[in-house]
């Protein structure tokens, strides 16, 4: 179980968090082999607002580092905000933008205010068969480009590390002649998203993390067993 069996992770999580888990997706069994399946870890305030997330499986030291970042940032944001909720939210979103810059060399502008939400009761809003609105896809703030305070070597070093991390991929940023391909990874995309949506409730964030960052499909269906030859069993005998 990778990170979750690491005693240091267990000690830190049990001391600072109350843990739980939820099934939000499914996987297929095709010809006896599993296809799909993933995990996302969320660090939340007790009222369900997302402070931080880790998309995809990671090793123990990485999960521990991210969990420590949450606790340290929470303390710093509490101190800086002096009990003002709006300042606390702004501090947390700015911390995500700073983290993205430190880890990948990429610059995003933290969005420290929330746009008015569309009504769930709108006749045009999509709903699942039970009548609930679907998990929204939150737009991430655009990547402005490389941090201009970094030298080329510093930026390239960070980009190389970013590309080697889980989910490493290239995306385009900038417009016109300033258009550039830059490396991001799962964690960088999560930090980019939370630079605009930290302190949003988990039910509004999880769909974006699971589908847009990890490329999974949100589903509460049981395991989908799929075989190209459903009329025979594995030994070749007719099923009915």
């Amino acid at each position, binding site marked *: *179980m990778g990170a979750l069996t690491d005693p240091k992770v267990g000690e830190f999580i*049990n001391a600072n968090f*109350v843990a*739980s888990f939820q099934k939000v997706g499914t996987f297929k069994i095709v010809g006896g082999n599993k296809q799909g399946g993933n995990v996302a870890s969320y660090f939340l305030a007790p009222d369900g607002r997302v402070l931080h997330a880790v998309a995809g499986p990671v090793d123990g030291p990485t999960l521990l580092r991210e969990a420590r970042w949450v606790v340290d940032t929470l303390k710093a944001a509490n101190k800086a905000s002096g009990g003002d909720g709006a300042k606390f939210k702004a501090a947390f979103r700015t911390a995500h933008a700073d983290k993205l810059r430190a880890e990948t060399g990429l610059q995003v502008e933290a969005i420290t205010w929330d746009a008015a939400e569309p009504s769930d009761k709108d006749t045009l809003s999509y709903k699942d068969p039970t009548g609930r609105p679907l998990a929204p896809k939150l737009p991430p703030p655009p990547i402005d480009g490389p941090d201009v305070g970094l030298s080329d070597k510093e930026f390239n070093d960070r980009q190389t590390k970013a590309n080697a991390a889980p989910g490493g991929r290239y995306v385009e940023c900038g417009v016109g002649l300033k258009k550039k391909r830059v490396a991001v990874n799962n964690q960088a995309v999560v930090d980019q998203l939370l630079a605009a949506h930290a302190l949003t409730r988990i039910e509004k964030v999880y769909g974006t993390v699971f589908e847009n960052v990890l490329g*999974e499909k949100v589903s509460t269906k049981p395991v989908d067993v799929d075989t190209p030859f459903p009329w025979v069993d594995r030994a070749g005998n007719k099923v009915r």
Partner: protein
Amino acid sequence: MTRFLFAVAAAAALAAGGVAADKKPLPKPDTCFGTTIDFVDTPKEAAAKAKKDEKLVFVLHVSGNFEDPRFT
């Protein structure tokens, strides 16, 4: 039919005797699922407990086997 009733009565008597003789408490259910983290049953319960204990909440969203090392 009589034989069946005797058998049921004997089984009940044995079961009652067994419980009386063996008063060990039931084992605590495994809330770690083989990990080093103690999980509560639902995120809602985790939120309530976190508020009471002045802690944060850690929620895993999984698709696939919780026991599979590739995913957790």
